[in-house]
């Protein structure tokens, strides 16, 4: 296959960026999308040009490091997969493919197609855990958890933190990402003691990072490579509202040294 690529190139967060057109030639339909970019980068390197910078690591759809907005879709046109799982047979010979980074002010550009997603880490640090130390915990079978609850918690826990939900959202909202963790721990008995406090803390950090609000469009759910459901957001809103009405804790004072 021979393809034309329109790729966003930007030296760093401060520099201005622009689309640059490249030819991708002799591409095998068996290649993954990232392997196609590898081929382009090899030929750029041979010419002494700087290769296109993009984030990637496991190349099997689980680490969440790869991103890319491909022809207007996060992780490309196919549902339920990441960019590294996308294969070139999805495209046809002669096609022009537009490749952009995630676009959200909370995800500043690092270089070319790579963005800074450390805001996601800071949201997790604000409360995405059960406060237990190593050692001194009860036996793994001390608390029975109904299979349906465990399975539902697992579904939320499969989030890979790639940021496609933010990239897909017209408001650049991170609600699907945040609610997946709030839901996972909120469903399990181990997560109950901090359930409402967790929802408050994580939402507060999310707001501080500059993510937009949710208007229930559902683009995040449609584009999520792990097919995390919109119902997670409903659960988080419910916990957050309960906290507001009945159980509010002074998380801000604590966080900001009050």
């Amino acid at each position, binding site marked *: 296959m021979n393809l034309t690529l329109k790729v966003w190139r930007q030296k*760093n967060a401060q520099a201005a960026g622009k689309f640059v057109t490249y030819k991708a030639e002799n591409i*095998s339909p*068996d*290649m*993954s999308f990232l*392997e196609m970019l*590898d*081929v382009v980068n*090899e030929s750029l*390197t*041979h010419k002494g*040009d*700087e*290769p296109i*910078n993009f*984030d*990637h*690591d*496991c*190349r*099997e759809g*689980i*680490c*969440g490091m790869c991103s890319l907005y491909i022809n207007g879709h996060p992780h490309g046109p196919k549902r339920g997969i990441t960019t590294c*799982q996308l*294969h070139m047979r999805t495209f046809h010979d002669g096609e022009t493919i537009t490749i952009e980074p995630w676009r959200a002010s909370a995800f500043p550009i*690092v*270089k070319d197609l*790579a963005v800074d*997603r*450390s805001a*996601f*880490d800071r949201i*997790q*640090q*604000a*409360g995405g*855990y*059960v*406060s*237990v130390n*190593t*050692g001194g*915990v*009860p036996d*793994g*079978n001390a608390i*029975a*958890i*109904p*299979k349906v609850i*465990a*399975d539902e*918690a*697992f579904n939320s*826990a499969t989030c890979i*933190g790639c940021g496609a939900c933010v990239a897909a959202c017209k408001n650049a909202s991170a609600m699907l990402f945040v609610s997946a963790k709030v839901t996972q721990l909120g469903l*399990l008995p*181990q*997560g109950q003691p901090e359930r409402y406090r967790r929802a408050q803390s994580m939402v507060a950090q999310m707001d501080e990072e500059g993510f937009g609000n949710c208007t229930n469009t559902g683009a995040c759910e449609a584009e999520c490579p792990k097919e995390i459901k919109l119902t997670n957001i409903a659960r988080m809103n419910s916990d957050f509202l309960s906290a507001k009405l009945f159980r509010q804790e002074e998380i801000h004072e604590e966080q900001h040294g009050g």
Partner: protein
Amino acid sequence: MSLDAKIPQGPLAEKWSKHKFNLKLVNPANKRKYDIIIVGTGLAGASAAASLAELGYNVKSFCFQDSPRRAHSIAAQGGINAAKNYQNDGDSVYRLFYDTIKGGDYRAREGNVYRLAEVSVNIIDQCVAQGVPFAREYGGLLDNRSFGGSQVSRTFYARGQTGQQLLLGAYSALNRQIHAGKVKMYTRTEMLDVVVVDGHAKGIVTRNMLTGEIETHAGHAVLLCTGGYSNVFYLSTNAIGSNVTAAWRAHKRGAFFGNPCYTQIHPTCIPVTGDHQSKLTLMSESLRNDGRVWAPKTVELAEQLRKGTLKADQIKEDDRDYFLERKYPAFGNLVPRDVASRNAKEMVEDGRGVGGSGFAVFLDFADAIKRLGEETVKAKYGNLFDMYIQITDENPYKQPMRIYPAVHYTMGGLWVDYNLMTTIPGLYALGECNFSDHGANRLGASALMQGLSDGYFVIPYTLGDYLANIGPKKVDTNHPAFEQTQKDVIEHVNKLLALKGTKTVNEYHRDLGHIMWEYCGMARTEEGLKKAKGLIQALKADFWKNAIVTGENEEVNASLERAGRIADFIELGELMVDDALMREESCGGHFRVESQTPDGEAKRDDENFAFVAAWEFKGENQPEVLNKEPLVFESVHLSQRNYA
């Protein structure tokens, strides 16, 4: 140098408890006077960072990815072993210990392996308390599955993504400590050297991958939790970024490298389609429960299959060779990983390989579908079949899967004593980065167990002993060793950036991979290894003349990052070849063609090779020196493995 593994005296079952009591403690108020550097945030690194910070130490944690959650532990599929005996099927700490020692072909330490089995039960409790959503039964209790190399069900799992769930558990514990201010996290930061002051590890030199800044960090101890080196083979199931650099640079500063040639080659991976391929994808071991492995009986049929003039389902039953069932009637398709891999390779060498490239055999589910129905097969393996369809565009419900072995894990690593300390005092290695617990072959679902055991339950005890001995005196970064090491790193970076030749770093990596796979892969011969050594030395010389490295240091520069890692892989490759050449026996994943039984199975030589090989760096382009740590077996009887 004589190696002291510091394995405690006394009966096997009491070694760890006695040792814990004998270790010195650091009192709670003094712990905050110590700074600990931890490199890597996979299962070992994240669990160690969280646990040590909870105890009160100040931790600095480093990873090269954009977030600690991306570490390659995340990709582990199958599960984690623990001797809980929840199934009432006869499991015990001793049985897990025994299976692991035997599975490792009697090339691991009894003391270490017993401790691993002992703390395995605590790991499950810890993960459940963190909110890890393990698979459960309808009664609400934890579910188990069976895995290779054992006759009990002791593997805990979270669908096909157990590594992800365990890592996110450890990541959450780490996040809690970052929030509490006890861990300072450095992402997109690559460790490039260890600083050794008066013989003790006192810090590291890193490169900020965003700005290029070469920085020094000081601490009372340094923990390397940087994973394995499968990517020396270019193609492996490891993530693209997985590399040996941290461990290798430590090795060159004085940490011995243990058993570098012990690598695990997993039999069921999706085959290579062409030279463009960047990595391989594993298909879980569990598939061999229902899939039958076969190749066509004749070369002629194989040729027709390769050309595509014949399809697998057109091959008559009589023309198929179910070679594992034929050769190993007792174990059939469920022989251990090393045996299954070697047999697939033999088929290919025999000219009976299938698929476009000829480097594959079939894994056929037709009988299972006939026996159980497509729905049942789908319920058991659906996600794996989907993954296969995604990558190959073939339907394994209609046509057999094509599979071929791929490098998956490295049992070798930095030599450590019972306390997980390397031969540099104050420098520790945890998880896949060390060599210690799996001998010459790792059993399925044991890697996750070891990573978390080291991080949650071993290092919090053993590290305190060292720290109590050295005292809390602040580490002085003004010591000339810091400046000198930083200078060395800058020089190395500049040397790489000056390479403006004609061949890309990726091309060198691929060449190295071809050499390693051909001569130091599934079967190794004296002749081949000697040839490989020459080829690697030539490749190294050529790399430093003709490689192309683009860009500058003061920016994001993937070309530079990669060049540094490949240069280290080339050097490691040579040491692996030396180690494989020295070890004239076959054991576990290390198969020397000269040492086999009349049936063609791996033949150990306990009289001459029951030792750990610990290699000592003696300077650039100097031969490394072999140190031997004898393996002493007090509890188990050594026997030759037999699966026929």
